[in-house]
């Protein structure tokens, strides 16, 4: 019985001493623990601030991107509108070209005038539809050369320089399409 009592007391002593030790350790490290807690709170706050900053920055970047896109789209729309206007003017110029050749060659069959006009339109569309700049320039030159020839044929015939019934130089430029 005494042995059991002694054993129990020993355990109680052990628990007490462990508690004391723990208390002493807590007292001794209270400062460090407070500092640690404080540092952790500061680190959390810093992280939060950093994340908020990044988020604001991204919002700002997105807003800048949207503004840039809006400006680019607006410019692109204007360019497209101008393109359509130019195309309309080209078509009108080609109509004028047909009228001009018909006015000079009064007996020119409609089918020939149509073919000349249609070929000019074919060249215009070839120029319009290519994305390659160099090719576009080549097609443009081809179209300008063709239009110049038509006008030249019309002028020469009107001035009586040529007596041919058809604008031969123009027709020579029309190959198989």
């Amino acid at each position: 019985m005494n042995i059991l009592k002694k054993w129990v007391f020993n355990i109680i002593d052990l628990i007490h001493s462990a508690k004391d030790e723990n208390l002493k350790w807590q007292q001794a490290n209270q400062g460090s623990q407070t500092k640690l807690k404080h540092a952790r709170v500061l680190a959390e706050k810093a992280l939060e601030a950093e994340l908020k900053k990044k988020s604001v920055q991204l919002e700002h970047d997105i807003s800048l991107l949207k503004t840039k896109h809006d400006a680019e789209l607006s410019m692109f729309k204007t360019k497209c509108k101008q393109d359509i206007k130019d195309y309309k003017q080209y078509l009108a110029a080609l109509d004028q070209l047909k009228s001009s050749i018909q006015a000079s060659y009064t007996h020119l069959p409609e089918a020939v005038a149509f073919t000349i006009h249609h070929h000019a339109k074919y060249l215009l569309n070839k120029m319009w539809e290519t994305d390659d700049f160099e090719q576009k320039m080549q097609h443009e030159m081809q179209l300008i050369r063709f239009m110049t020839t038509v006008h030249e044929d019309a002028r020469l015939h009107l001035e009586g320089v040529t007596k041919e019934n058809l604008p031969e130089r123009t027709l020579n430029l029309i190959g198989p399409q």
Partner: protein
Amino acid sequence: MQAKQDQVKRLFYFKTKQIKYFNELNRKRLLKLNNRKHIQSLSRAIDKDLLSIKTKLPGTTYLQLQQDNARYRDRQDIEALLKLQQKISSLV
């Protein structure tokens, strides 16, 4: 946030495509109108040529050629109209 940025970029890409598409549609519409105008004019000239030789043609041939002209015009078939014009020219 990154996803939002990607979405903005995608939207820009599609809006650009959309503008391009409608622009091309407008151009094609102008071209179609112009083609129609000149095809009408060619078809009228064919009708006139045909009328000038009406008396020299059998009634059925005249009618057939007239119908061909109308059909090719409605179909906006340039090649067929030009061939028809040549055919009419060679008839006399």
